[in-house]
């Protein structure tokens, strides 16, 4: 059973705080949670909302229909009431967010002591607790929830925190960043943790300064990372090319939002795959990895540090606003890959083609050898990624129907394949591209692709790497800045799977 709570209000009214507290209440009571947020690019006012979806079993998407609507302002009620289920509960009035979090705890039948102890972690808590208690006492318990109390503690984490966690586990020493939504969460998380950990976060005068400083740190032997969204990534591409020439290990975190240009600053999209694969002038080897949820984000971050160090190449870790800022719940422990440092000071590096002493050269034989040395890194790299599950098949492995996706669409696809006869091929390593993917695609009779963009760059990549063409009618694309919602994707997939059997070529 899935339940959805939608909390909406103006920026500044604190829907986020309610969502976070109820999510904690839910996981502490043994429920799995998926919580996303939609907000406008403004500091106060407007209409923001969070959806907290929960279940006794793991889930990774939000639904359209709402069980409980918390309306912090009239606008929220107006916009979302039509999605409220017939027996749904609406909480509205002139109370503040603390009152409503109290209401929610009571309605769901949770102990007030848990909320009390969570509220004590926030400054000036006494008034908050009083208000929450008033809310708690004003309601009756309406749900008779039974969780499959799991032995393992449920972790709750958003993608940005997970990527930060992965970076710390990889021994990151410097994270250079200029704020840009939706990547800023990594800067915030790493900044908060720099006193207890060994890294430093450094904010410089722009993305160009950041990546060049990161290269400076990397050449003296520090594990370095930078992060931004598409626009900031654009600014870093000349230096990305430098890392290819000078063979500097560097992790670049790219959290996508819809472009082109400033686009939709606080919304989600997957329009930057081609940029990650191709940005930077000249020919050089890179690794591009896109995790699909928070636990995977921790694991893939440690892998990208491993590969960038081992092969002295740049690595691009792709996320998007939906993964970066949504909260995921999981019980399994992430698998950490340990990475050894590869750069040892003293050493010389050059942006020019250079000889063995890194002195610039235009010598015809040296140039040819250098180019081959750099490009040939891809051979071993392509082999070694096969040990790291560069792709994964989920669901009924014998199904003849296949959905392909990458990045944050993983969550909603995992949820819908429980309802429809389909398996799911998630491609996490976009570059290098596993040779085994071709076999998986060949096995399927019907192949659908799901992407949060308008031109389906993954289809093009698959065509380039495997020769397999996905039909336009089998591309399920969403490019309105919003993530796929459970019912919506289920309907789109069912429409295509029920249609007459076709053989694709």
């Amino acid at each position: 059973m899935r339940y959805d709570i939608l909390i909406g209000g103006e920026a500044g009214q604190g829907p986020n705080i309610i969502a976070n507290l109820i999510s904690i209440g839910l996981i502490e009571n043994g429920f799995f949670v998926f919580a996303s947020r939609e907000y406008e690019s403004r500091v106060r006012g407007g209409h923001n909302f969070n959806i907290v979806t929960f279940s006794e079993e793991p889930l990774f998407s939000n639904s359209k229909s709402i069980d409980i609507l918390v309306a912090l302002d009239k606008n929220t009620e107006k916009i979302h009431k039509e999605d409220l289920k017939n027996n749904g509960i609406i909480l509205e009035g002139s109370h503040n967010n603390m009152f409503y979090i109290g209401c929610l705890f009571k309605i769901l039948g949770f102990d007030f002591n848990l909320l009390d102890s969570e509220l004590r972690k926030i400054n000036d808590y006494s008034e908050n607790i009083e208000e929450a208690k008033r809310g708690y006492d004003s309601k009756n318990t309406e749900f008779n929830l039974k969780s499959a109390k799991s032995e393992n503690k449920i972790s709750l984490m958003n993608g940005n925190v997970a990527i930060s966690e992965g970076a710390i586990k990889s021994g990151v020493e410097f994270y250079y960043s200029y704020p840009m939504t939706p990547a800023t969460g990594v800067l915030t998380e790493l900044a908060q943790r720099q006193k207890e950990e060994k890294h430093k976060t450094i904010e410089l005068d722009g993305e160009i300064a950041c990546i060049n400083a990161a290269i400076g740190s990397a050449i003296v032997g520090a594990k370095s990372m930078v992060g931004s969204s598409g626009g900031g990534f654009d600014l870093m591409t000349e230096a990305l090319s430098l890392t290819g020439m000078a063979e500097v290990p560097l992790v670049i975190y790219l959290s996508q939002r819809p472009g082109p240009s400033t686009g939709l600053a606080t919304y989600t999209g997957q329009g930057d795959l081609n940029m990650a694969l191709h940005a930077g002038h000249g020919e050089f080897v890179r690794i591009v990895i896109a995790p699909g949820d928070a636990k995977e984000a921790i694991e893939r971050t440690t892998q990208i540090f491993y590969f960038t160090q081992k092969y002295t190449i740049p690595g691009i870790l792709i996320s998007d606003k939906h993964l970066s800022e949504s909260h995921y719940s999981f019980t399994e422990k992430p698998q950490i890959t340990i990475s050894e440092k590869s750069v040892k000071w003293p050493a010389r590096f050059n942006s020019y083609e250079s000889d063995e002493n890194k002195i610039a050269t235009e010598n015809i034989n040296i140039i040819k050898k250098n180019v081959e040395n750099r490009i040939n890194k891809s051979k071993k790299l392509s082999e070694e990624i096969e040990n790291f599950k560069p792709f994964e098949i989920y669901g009924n492995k014998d199904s003849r129907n296949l959905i392909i996706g990458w990045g944050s669409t993983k969550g909603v696809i995992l949820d819908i394949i429980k309802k429809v006869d389909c398996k799911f091929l998630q491609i996490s390593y976009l570059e290098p591209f596993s040779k085994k993917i071709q076999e998986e695609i060949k096995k399927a009779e019907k192949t659908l692709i799901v992407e949060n963009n308008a031109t389906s760059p993954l289809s093009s990549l698959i065509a380039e790497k495997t020769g397999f063409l996905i039909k336009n009618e089998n591309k399920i694309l969403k490019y309105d800045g919003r993530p796929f919602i459970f019912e919506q994707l289920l309907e789109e997939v069912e429409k295509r799977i029920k249609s007459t059997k076709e053989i694709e070529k």
Partner: protein
Amino acid sequence: MNNSIRTNAESTWCPGCNNFILLHAVQKVIEKQIESGKRKEDFGIVCGIGCHGKIFDYLNLPGINTLHGRTAPTCLGMKLAKPDLNVIGFSGDGDAYAEGIEHLIQMARYNSDFKYIIHNNQVFALTLGQPTPTTELGYIDKTNPDGVAISPLNPVKLMLVMGASFVARTCCETEQIKYVLEEALKHKGFAYIEVLQPCLIFHKNEDYKKRFYNLQKTEHNKTNFEEAMARADEFDYSSKDSKIPVGIFYQKERKTFEELKLNMQIAINSEK
């Protein structure tokens, strides 16, 4: 890397180029430091792109010949990750004052503890003579057949205003560069050193020699900001007859970027 800080790389600077003098002075200063116990790996050099950048090939020291205009942030990143390293950055006037000037401005404010030598030949020489931000008014080249009409930047004033803790200009003369670089290496914090060396090819008739005077041979008080600004105002990079002050305009130590960033306790209680 062998023990010498010199290399056998063929020099591709023009015969008689002022860069030879600059290179010689830098070699002398670093060799002296190595004789008195420093190791080659205690130094890190960074160069950009342009005639100046070729110095990377003539110094057998670790570091990076990086992108055009990105010397300064690269130096900062090295210094943060290895605070004991003596980091020396080299840039041309194109590299420091055109592409990447935002970094120069911020570095003065940050006070990262590296030394930054600007080879100012007042022209984009390697691309065959286009004007930079410090090219004089009226300069004619193929891209400006009617002559440069925009007044040049005064980078010394810019550095002073942005709070650089060490601001110097030298003429292209060995002893003068050696003196200023040695003082800069003793200075804790960002040191800006401009070496004024009009290009022999594109500024054939430029003769600054008679116009230079050494601030350290006058009553100049290098801890006085107003005095430094007044001296910086004497030469506007365009006039044909004004005096050109050289030497250390201004010097006042304060906490460095690395001290502030790497030690959070200091950051919280920081005083300027």
